[in-house]
C-alpha cells in the first residue's frame, strides 16, 4: 500500500491540480468560455426573488368541453340523431338519445383521423374525450390523457408568456423552469421587491374589442361595469378583435389632454377586420374588455383602417406601461397563482455570505489546530489533505457551475469536520498496528489496508443519504446535498491518495526510527 510508482504519484497530483485549478477561476476574470466558469450564488446569498406559480387549468377543462358543444350538436343533427336534455356541467356534457342511435353516436365520437369533436392524441394513444352510457343518458367528459394533454399545453404556453413578460421587464438572468406538471418556477436574482412582477404575472391579459349593444344581440350579451366611470354597459359576446391580433403596444401620451394611453398596431387580418367593423358601426360604442373588466367604451368616431389605434382609460403612465407590456407579450391561457414566494434582500445575502465564510474559516482553523496538536507531523499531513480536499471540492463545484446556497456552505463546513475522519481512522489504525509490528513500513501498510474498508463503508452510507437528499429534497436541502456529496467524494480521494502518499514519504525516510503518531 505504501509503494507508489512515479507514474502513480504524477497522475495523483496531476488529477488534483487539474481539478483544483478551477477553484481559482472564481477569483480571477478570464475571458475564455471554459475558464470563465464560476460557482453561482443562490438567491439566499446574492439576494433575489423565488416565485412558484401554479397554473390553474380547471377553467380550461370546462372551456374545452364547451368548445365541443357546437360541433357536436351539428354532427348529431347531420346524422339525424335526436337528443334532448342537453346540459353542460362543470366537467361533463350530458344528454339523452334514443337507444337505437347509440351505434351512430359511437361512430361519430370514435372516428379517428379528422374528428373535430374528439381529437385523437397520438402521443398518448388515446382520445381526448371519453363517454359513459347509462340507459339512454350519455355523459361526455375529458379522458385522463385529455386532461394531461390540456394541462401540459397550458403550462408550456404559460411558461412562454411568463418568459416574455419577464424579459420585457428587463431583469438580469431570470430562470424560468417547469416544475412538476402544473407549476412554473421563476427565479429572479437581484429583484428586491417582486410585487410588480407578481402583479404582471397574475393577470391573464385577455383583451377583446366588442360592440356595446342595446338590449338583445344575436350572439348573446353580457354586462360589464366600466372601471372608471362605473357605468354599466351591455356588451355583445361576439369578439371583433382579440389580443392575438396585436403585433405591438406602447404607452404614449394623448395629444389632446396629455393623458397616458396605450397605442397598438394590428396584424394584417386584424387591420382588415377592425377597418370593416369601425366603418360599419360609426356612432356606436366599442367596448375594450380586459380580463372580464371593461377598460373603456369609446364611441367610434371614424373608420380606423390603418391598423393602428389607441386605448384610453384613466391610466397613470405606470399602468399604461404595464398594460402595453401585457398586450405585447400575449395572454396567458389561464390565471397563475403564486403558491410559494421567497425573497431575500441583497444586504441579508451579503451578511449571510460573510457569516458563512467567517464560520467556515474559523471552523477550518479550529480543526487544523486540533489535528496538529493531536497528530503532530501526521496532523499536518491530514491538514494538507484537508486543504486539497477543499480545493478540489471548490474546483468540482465550479466545473459543474453548481449553485452555492447558505445550507451549501454548511455542507462544506460539515465536510471539513468529517473529512478528517478518514485520516483519523487511518492514523488510529496505524497506531494499533505499530504496537504489534516491528517494522514501521509493515505497520503503515496494514493500517492503510485495514482502515480503507471501514472508510468506504462509513462514507458510502453517508453518500447514500446525501444522494437521496439531492433527488427528493427541495430548495435549500438540494444545495446542502450537492456540497456534502461532492465533499465525500473528494474526501475519499484526498485521504486515499494524498494522505497515503505523504505518509509513505515520511515512513520511508524514518524506516528505522521510532515513529510516534
Amino acid at each position, binding site marked *: 500500500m505504501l509503494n507508489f510508482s512515479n507514474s502513480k504519484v504524477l497522475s495523483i497530483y496531476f488529477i488534483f491540480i487539474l481539478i483544483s485549478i478551477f477553484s481559482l477561476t472564481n477569483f480571477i476574470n478570464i475571458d475564455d468560455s471554459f475558464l470563465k466558469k464560476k460557482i453561482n450564488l443562490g438567491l*439566499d446569498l446574492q439576494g433575489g426573488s423565488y416565485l*412558484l406559480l*401554479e397554473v390553474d387549468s380547471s377553467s380550461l377543462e370546462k372551456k374545452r368541453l364547451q368548445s365541443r358543444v357546437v360541433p357536436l350538436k351539428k354532427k348529431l343533427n347531420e346524422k339525424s340523431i335526436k337528443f334532448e336534455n342537453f346540459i353542460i356541467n362543470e366537467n361533463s356534457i350530458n344528454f339523452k338519445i334514443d337507444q337505437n342511435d347509440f351505434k351512430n353516436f359511437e361512430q361519430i365520437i370514435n372516428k379517428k383521423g379528422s374528428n373535430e369533436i374528439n381529437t385523437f392524441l397520438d402521443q398518448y394513444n388515446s382520445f381526448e374525450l371519453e363517454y359513459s352510457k347509462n340507459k339512454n343518458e350519455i355523459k361526455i367528459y375529458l379522458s385522463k390523457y385529455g386532461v394531461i394533454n390540456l394541462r401540459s399545453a397550458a403550462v408550456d404556453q404559460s411558461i412562454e408568456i411568463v418568459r416574455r413578460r419577464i424579459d420585457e421587464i428587463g431583469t438580469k438572468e431570470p430562470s424560468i423552469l417547469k416544475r412538476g406538471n402544473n407549476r412554473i418556477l421563476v427565479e429572479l436574482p437581484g429583484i428586491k*421587491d417582486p*410585487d410588480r412582477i*407578481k*402583479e404582471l404575472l*397574475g393577470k391573464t391579459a385577455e383583451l377583446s374589442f366588442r360592440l356595446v349593444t342595446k338590449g338583445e344581440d344575436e350572439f348573446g350579451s353580457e354586462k360589464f361595469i366600466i372601471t372608471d366611470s362605473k357605468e354599466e354597459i351591455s356588451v355583445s359576446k361576439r369578439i371583433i378583435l382579440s389580443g392575438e391580433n396585436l403585433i405591438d403596444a406602447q404607452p404614449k401620451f394623448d395629444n389632446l389632454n396629455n393623458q397616458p394611453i396605450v397605442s397598438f398596431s394590428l396584424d394584417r387580418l386584424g387591420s382588415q377586420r377592425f377597418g370593416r367593423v369601425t366603418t360599419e358601426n360609426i356612432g356606436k360604442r366599442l367596448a375594450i374588455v380586459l380580463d372580464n373588466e371593461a377598460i373603456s367604451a369609446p364611441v367610434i368616431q371614424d373608420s380606423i383602417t390603418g391598423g393602428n389605434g389607441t386605448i384610453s382609460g384613466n391610466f397613470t403612465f405606470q399602468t399604461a406601461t404595464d398594460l402595453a407590456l401585457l398586450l405585447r407579450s400575449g395572454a396567458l391561457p389561464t390565471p397563475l397563482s*403564486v*403558491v*410559494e*414566494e*421567497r*425573497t431575500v*434582500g441583497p444586504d*441579508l445575502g451579503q451578511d*449571510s455570505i460573510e*457569516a*458563512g465564510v*467567517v*464560520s467556515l474559516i*474559523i*471552523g477550518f482553523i*479550529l*480543526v487544523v489546530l*486540533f489535528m496538529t496538536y493531536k497528530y503532530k507531523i501526521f496532523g499536518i499531513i491530514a491538514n494538507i489533505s484537508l486543504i486539497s480536499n477543499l480545493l478540489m471540492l471548490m474546483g468540482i463545484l465550479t466545473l459543474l457551475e453548481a449553485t452555492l446556497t*447558505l*445550507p451549501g456552505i*454548511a455542507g462544506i*463546513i*460539515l465536510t*471539513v*469536520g*468529517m473529512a*478528517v*475522519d478518514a485520516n*483519523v*481512522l487511518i492514523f*488510529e489504525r496505524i497506531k494499533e498496528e505499530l504496537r504489534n509490528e516491528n517494522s514501521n513500513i509493515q505497520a503503515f501498510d496494514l493500517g492503510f489496508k*485495514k482502515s480503507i*474498508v*471501514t472508510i468506504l*463503508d*462509513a*462514507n*458510502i*452510507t*453517508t453518500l*447514500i*443519504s*446525501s444522494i*437521496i*437528499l439531492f433527488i*427528493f*429534497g*427541495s430548495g*435549500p*436541502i438540494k444545495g*446542502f446535498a450537492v456540497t*456534502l456529496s461532492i465533499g465525500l467524494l473528494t474526501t475519499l480521494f484526498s485521504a486515499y491518495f494524498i494522505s497515503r502518499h505523504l505518509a509513505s514519504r515520511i515512513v520511508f525516510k524514518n524506516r528505522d526510527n521510532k515513529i510516534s503518531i
Partner: protein
Amino acid sequence: MINNFNFEKNFKLANISSLCLVFASVFMIFFKGLNFGIDFKGGTLIELRCDSENIQISDVRASFNNLNLGDVNVKEFGKKGDYLIKFERKNFDEKNSIKIIKENVKNKLQGNIDFRRVENVGPKVSKELLESGLLAISLALAAMLFYIWVRFEWQFSIGSIIAIFHDVLITIGLFSLLSLEINLSIVAAVLTIVGYSMNDTVVIYDRIRENLIKYSSLKIGEISNKSINETLSRTVITSTTTLLALISIFILGGEILKGFSLAMIIGVIIGTYSSIFVASPILKYLNVSYKTISKEKEKN
C-alpha cells in the same frame, strides 16, 4: 495509550435511560407538538430591519394589527432592530396582500424599514414539502439499511436502525421541548444526523465483525467492549472535529443557520452515544456470534 473501559457493564443502565429518553421524546412530540415553520405549516415570514432607535418590539407587533392576519408572532432576531415576524394568513388568495402589509408597516413605523426577507408558502406547497421531506428521510433510511444488510448481517441492520430511530426521536423530542422551529433545513440536519450516526455505527460494527473472526472464542459482549475501546479514540477525535466545525457555524454562521447547526450538534452527540450504547448492545441481545458471520461466509 490503550483504552480499556468497561462499557459492557453500563449497557443496561444506558439502555434504560435511552428508553426513558425516547419515550419522553415521543410523549413530548405527541402532547406538546412540534413548532413547524412556514415551510411545513404554510404562512408568511418577514424579516425586517429598522434603523430607528425608538422602535420597540411592541411597536412592530402593533404595526401588524388590524390587518386581520390572525396570530402574529414577532421576535427579535440577531442584531438590535432586526425582527422576525411570522403569521398564518387565512385569506391566502388575496392578491397583493404582501404589498399591502409592507405598505401598512412602513406607514406605521418611523424611520427606514428594510424588508430583508419575505417568504410566503401556500398551504398546498407546505403539505407537499412536508411529505417530500418525510419521503426523503424514509428512503434514505431504507437505502442505508439495505447497504448495511448487504455488507453485514441482518442483526447489524436492526442494530443500526434502532440506533438511528433513537437519535432522530431524541433530537426531534428536544426540538419539541425547546419549542425550536422545524423547517426545511432541519430536515436536512436530521438526514445528516442519520448519515453521521450510521457512519459512527459502521466504524464500530466493522471492528466488531473483524474481532468476531479474530477472537472466535470470545462472547459478543466482550467483543463489543473490545471493539468500542479500540475505536474509542477515533470516535472521540472525529466527534470533536465535527463539533468544532458545527459550533463555529452555530456561533458565527448567522441566525438562519442557528437551528440547523443546533440540530446537528445535538445529533452528533446523541449519534456518538448511540453507536456505543445502543447499536452495540443490540448485537448482544440478538446473540450475534462468530457463527453469524461465518455461516454467511460458507454460503458464498
